[in-house]
């Protein structure tokens, strides 16, 4: 009896406290989301309104003109295609190569397994600036070697390769820790049945890897989509840059018409935000697979 009363008292007190906390965090959340909402709001207004009536003026016109203009004037379609040419192959290749190493490391007991895992995982944590100059130089030299300077430099392939090299460590780590949870018996029966190594990988293991592959795929698409930096270094031609780099460039060009720029920013942000809302589960599990396996 007394415990029940105490419980109830405790619960009531806790409830009041929780409501207070909720309001406090709600306020915090409002501050958090505000810059994004402000950007969206800005994108809906014509520049002239702000010039003539001020930042906080009541809107005379609200429309999507800036969005149409952003597509037209900034040529966003082409840049989106560039992003597609880089992101899709880079993600697929990263997942493929990562799953190969993870497969070997978790299914065969070679002496070098751990060193291999360490090499890949540590590679993912290196400060990326260490590689700029040699990669740049290597790309030009490899190009010259094949008589075509833009074989890797100023080419989608070059950007894809650096992304893969950097991300494959994370993919390997996540996939191998997932594969360790797959029972060994499955592999043993495959081997007893006389499956070749390739069949063992392709027909037995790969289908089981679908959940972490999906999670990683979502996460890495987001990361590679968002990167604007490699393209600034390795793409000399503006028209071949991905959309995030292009946006960075356009920021300088359209600095005087920031409503147009706001529309551009919202358009470029949309794919990852939509991806996050639609595939939220994959998103979260991709990050946590890699970080909470301790």
């Amino acid at each position, binding site marked *: 009896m007394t415990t029940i009363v105490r419980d109830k008292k405790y619960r009531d007190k806790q409830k009041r406290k929780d409501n207070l906390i909720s309001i406090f965090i709600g306020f915090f959340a409002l501050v958090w989301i505000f810059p994004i909402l402000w950007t969206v709001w*800005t994108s809906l207004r014509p520049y002239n309104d702000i010039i003539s009536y001020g930042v906080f003026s009541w809107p005379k016109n609200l429309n999507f003109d800036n969005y149409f203009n952003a597509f037209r004037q900034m040529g966003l379609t082409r840049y989106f295609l560039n992003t597609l040419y880089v992101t899709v192959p880079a993600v697929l290749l990263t997942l493929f190569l990562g799953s190969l190493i993870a497969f070997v490391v978790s299914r065969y007991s070679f002496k070098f397994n751990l060193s291999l895992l360490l090499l*890949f995982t540590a590679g993912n944590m290196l400060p990326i600036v260490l590689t700029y100059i040699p990669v740049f130089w290597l790309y030009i030299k490899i190009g010259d070697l094949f008589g075509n300077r833009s074989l890797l430099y100023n080419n989608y392939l070059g950007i894809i390769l650096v992304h893969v090299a950097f991300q494959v460590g994370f993919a390997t780590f996540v996939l191998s820790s997932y594969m360790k949870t797959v029972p060994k018996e499955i592999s043993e029966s495959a081997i007893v049945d006389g499956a070749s190594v390739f069949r063992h990988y392709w027909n037995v293991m790969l289908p089981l890897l679908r959940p972490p592959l999906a999670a990683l795929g979502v996460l890495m698409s987001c990361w590679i989509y968002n990167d604007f930096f490699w393209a600034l270094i390795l793409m000399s031609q503006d028209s071949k840059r991905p959309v995030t780099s292009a946006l960075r460039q356009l920021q300088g060009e359209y600095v005087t018409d920031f409503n147009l720029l706001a529309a551009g920013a919202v358009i470029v942000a949309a794919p990852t935000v939509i991806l*996050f809302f639609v595939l939220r589960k994959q998103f979260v599990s991709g990050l946590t697979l890699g970080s*909470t396996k301790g």
Partner: protein
Amino acid sequence: MKTAAANKKIRSRRTLSKNDRFTLAAFIGIPTLMQIIFLWLPALITIVLSFTYWNGINVGDIKWAGIANYKNIFFGTPVFYEALKNNAIWLLWFTFIATPLGILLAYQIDRKIKGHKLYETVFYIPVVLSLAIIGIIWNFMFQPGGFIQGIMGRDIGNAISIWGNYDINTYVIMGVASWRHIGYIMLLYLAGLKSVDSSLREASAIDGATEWQTFRKIVLPAMRPVNIIIVVITIIESLRAFDLVYIIYGTSTAWPLLNILVFQNFAGQGISMKGAAYAVILLVLCVGPILLYLRAVFKEDLK
């Protein structure tokens, strides 16, 4: 029994046909080769280059410099210490403010307070945005004609410079950096918290423990693996910090960071191997946290 196991081992080794061995070699070889050529080899080359003079064009022009680049940095470049200071500020801010806030948020959201789903989403959105976009979004806050300027009653004509104001720009940069970091930490911690038995927490609360005691005595110890990872992420992110400041200031040293100095020497007015030396200094600072991370993550395998 013993022989059976031994036989099995031998058989499984023998079942690796020539084809299989070739497949395995390719499975290991191709990714490893790529990783070495495009990541480890360039990193090693940069370490070597940090001991040379070179303009980055003709290999024949590379001249041995010994530790001259490092000497120059440590004794002849005051901006290096400014950058170190800024990296340290970044680290301190993240360690004592941003990361604890992320953890606190995760803790409260995990208790399923009212609106927790919405809050989780809101705090996570900045994490999925490209820094190219984050730069633009925050410019709409601070630039002439932006929201903050408007609040201060300043129109485009009489706006003040916020990024260029050295009294406040550090706080502004830290604020924007936290905008992204807090959501990231929150998410990582939230995932870890799901694995902590909630009845433990309830029991301790009913026993009269305060919220803080419960958190410190029950939750924190149970979260040890995640804690280590979050510490490492916080340190590494602070050391590698770059994109955000680059977006605001470009390669100028208005608010220098180690990474900005690397880039300044690699791009812009001619390439100098001082940049390579900066990169190596950065690497040296990162080695500790990286090892800590690897040890935490591969604890069982290393035994």
